[in-house]
């Protein structure tokens, strides 16, 4: 543990993975809050409004966690990755600063109105504030993804004498072709997380025979969003995302798929363990020709393996990349199966009596968090060994004078703080769930802040 690059990577990875547990839920719930408020205004059923208040409270607690764990992300570019910031700051800081100017101010202002202003300003303003919170959280996601997309697929830049790059085409950076697929795929993932959380809690209430009216509503609304989101994750967005990787980063694709050798046609590895010493997959279960078809829509196409690329450009943790990718795809497939069956039962009006299905929905709640995390590990490990793909290697981006001991100190500090924050969040969530939506009948809660 004496390599500052490695510890800085651990710190960034740890803090970003932990951070993103919260925004994926708030971005998904922000959309569902708009749905609930809209249903209330259109149908006039007070229960939808009570549900919106209840989920608004869960949203607010989660949002706070997202805000406080998000602050270290922007700062770490400067503290731990100073050489990268100096190298690419002229470009990535454009999108990061735009996030502050266009998303954060919007979010914070309208969240205040959403949480504090329902009685004072009336239902239309309240609905509008929910919409603006949704726009703000998703805009925030766009700017971050535009930043990440530039690191995955640098565009609109020119090299500067003496090292570094500067922006040459603003719109090319902001409208990087890479970001559209990333955004569509990532926001779909957030909807899946939010929708499974809503359906899962509804299933819990039905199984526990508490708040059953709301339980049925949560399952219905959550499940419809979940099935749309789950299918969207495979097609078109998942498909487009892997095509994009195949085109821009074929070496990452080969690592994700566990494709060591170039093959024609290539099979799709479903299960198996990468064996880096022998450069093969142990205990493989393979669907013949399937990889050729998925990548090139041609059952006979050649797919290049890792051997076709110089080893210095291989991602530096191929097994973890391979597992992350397979966990993401595997869970995504399972989500589609669960939601399609559950929607069928809902349509046949049998879902609320099918307790086995409610059990599955309840127990599925944490898995979208894992799938989203695995998806991000796939994207970021696939970018390695580059910090900016093809332009700057990761070890060239670290702060030159920050020693490993100092970074280890702060990494341990973050770990301790995040452990406590996780416990607090868990306690507060358990309390909200135990109180249930019926405690939200009155638009004023006594509590002061939310």
């Amino acid at each position, binding site marked *: 543990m004496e390599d500052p690059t490695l510890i800085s990577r651990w710190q960034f990875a740890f803090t970003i993975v932990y951070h993103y547990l919260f925004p994926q839920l708030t971005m998904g719930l922000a959309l569902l809050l708009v749905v609930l408020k809209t249903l209330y205004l259109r149908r006039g059923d007070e229960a939808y409004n009570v549900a919106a208040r209840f989920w608004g409270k869960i949203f*607010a*607690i989660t949002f*706070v966690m997202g*805000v*406080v*764990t998000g*602050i*270290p992300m922007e*700062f770490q*570019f*400067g*503290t731990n990755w*100073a*050489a990268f*910031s*100096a190298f690419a*700051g*002229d470009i990535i*800081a*454009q999108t*990061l*600063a*735009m*996030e*502050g*100017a*266009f998303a*954060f*101010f*919007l979010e*914070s*202002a*309208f*969240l*205040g*109105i959403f949480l*504090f*202003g329902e*009685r*004072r*300003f009336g239902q239309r303003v309240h609905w509008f504030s929910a919409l603006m919170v949704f726009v703000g959280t998703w805009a925030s996601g766009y700017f971050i993804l535009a930043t990440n997309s530039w690191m995955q697929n640098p565009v609109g830049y020119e090299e500067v004498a003496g090292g570094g790059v*500067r*922006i*040459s085409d*603003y719109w090319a950076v902001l409208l990087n072709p890479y970001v559209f697929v990333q955004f569509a795929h990532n926001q779909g993932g957030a909807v899946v997380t939010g929708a499974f959380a809503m359906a899962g809690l509804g299933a819990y209430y039905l199984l526990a025979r508490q708040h059953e009216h709301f339980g049925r509503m949560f399952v219905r609304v959550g499940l419809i969003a979940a099935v749309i989101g789950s299918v969207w994750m495979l097609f078109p967005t998942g498909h487009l995302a892997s095509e994009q990787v195949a085109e821009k980063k074929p070496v990452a694709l080969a690592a994700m798929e566990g494709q060591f050798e170039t093959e024609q046609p290539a099979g799709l590895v479903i299960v198996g363990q990468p064996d880096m010493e022998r450069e093969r997959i142990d205990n493989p279960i393979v669907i013949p020709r399937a990889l050729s078809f998925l990548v090139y829509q041609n059952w006979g196409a050649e797919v290049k393996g890792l051997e076709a690329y110089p080893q210095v450009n291989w991602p530096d943790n191929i097994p973890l990349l391979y597992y992350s990718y397979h966990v993401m795809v595997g869970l995504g497939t399972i989500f589609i199966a669960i939601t399609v069956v559950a929607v069928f039962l809902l349509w046949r009006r049998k879902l609320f009596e099918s307790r086995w299905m409610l059990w599955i929905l309840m127990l599925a709640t944490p898995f979208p968090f894992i799938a989203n995390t695995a998806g991000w590990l796939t994207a970021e490990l696939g970018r390695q060994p580059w910090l900016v793909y093809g332009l700057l290697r990761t070890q060239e981006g670290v*702060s*030159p*004078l*920050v020693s490993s001991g100092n970074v280890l100190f*702060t990494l341990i500090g973050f770990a301790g*703080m995040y452990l406590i*924050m996780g416990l*607090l969040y868990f306690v*507060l969530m358990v*309390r909200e769930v135990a109180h249930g939506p019926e405690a939200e009948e009155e638009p*004023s809660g006594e*509590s*002061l*802040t*939310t």
Partner: protein
Amino acid sequence: METLWFVLVAFMLTMYVLLDGFDLGAGAIHTFIAKSDEERRLVLKSIGPVWDGNEVWIIAAGGTLFFSFPLLYASGFSGFYLPLIIVLWLLMIRGLSIELRGHIESPVWATFWDGMFFLGSSLLSIFYGVALGNVVRGVPLGEDGYFFQPLWTNFSPTNPNPGILDWYTILIGLLALVALVVHGASWVAVKTEGELNARARRAARIGWVALVALTAITTAATFSLRPGMLSSFSERPWGFVFPSLAVAGLVLVGYFGFRRRDRPAFLSSGAYIAGMMASTAFAIYPKVLPAVEPENSLTVHNASGSTYGLTVGLIWWTIGMVLAAIYFILIYRLFRGKVSLEDDGY
């Protein structure tokens, strides 16, 4: 163009200190002026809808600094590694304390978060002052534009390898704490009535006396330590408008404070803070990060982003700030007036 962005970044940082300053100050004194649970909830309620938006200014200012002066961001943030991460931890603790206190009704829970709110707010105020003190004193920048400062060395600002903390930067930290206490107490006075209002006014008055003394001491210390800072003013005498604003604000805080006129007192303390921030920015310009070895200093010329990037940025920045100004005016108008617990309107 670089100079314009220097002004804009300084403007955003000043906005941050003005806005988040009053809720930091409120946090630093709320355990002293608000005795009962009701009163503490009133203090929190006076900042409840706005503190998060106020804090966005530091994130937005950080982003704007990163984009307009990437080398300053890279050098400064890595050089101040430990104190910056500690500031992050304090920001996190403080945010949680404001938002989570109301979720469980228990005296133990509430008191714990009150303590965290006090700790986070007061230490952050001091750290911001210390950071400003470091910039004024200068940091040990190498020829490559990087430095790394330990938290302390021998506490002497004239050491060629100064630490983050020395007697000068600690002095500026105390000045910042007292200035924000006055600012925060004035805000609480504006937003409350009765006993709490009276105690907030008293805190602001006591703070004001300390502030006058500290302002005089730090000004003397700054010019004896960095006589060069005076040259900015002698070369461009119009700059005296900034210290004059600070002095006028300081005098008026006392004037209105003793006449129990809360709103003008709060605005005057804002003028004082803006004047002090502007004076500092004016004095260090064209440097953005002065070095112990003056020729290694980062300036607006050698640390800025590309001209094209800065030009494009000016367009979206202006749009973004106009939008932000609209939200802020809206929010502060919607939530204007004194706070009370009965008519909580949500």
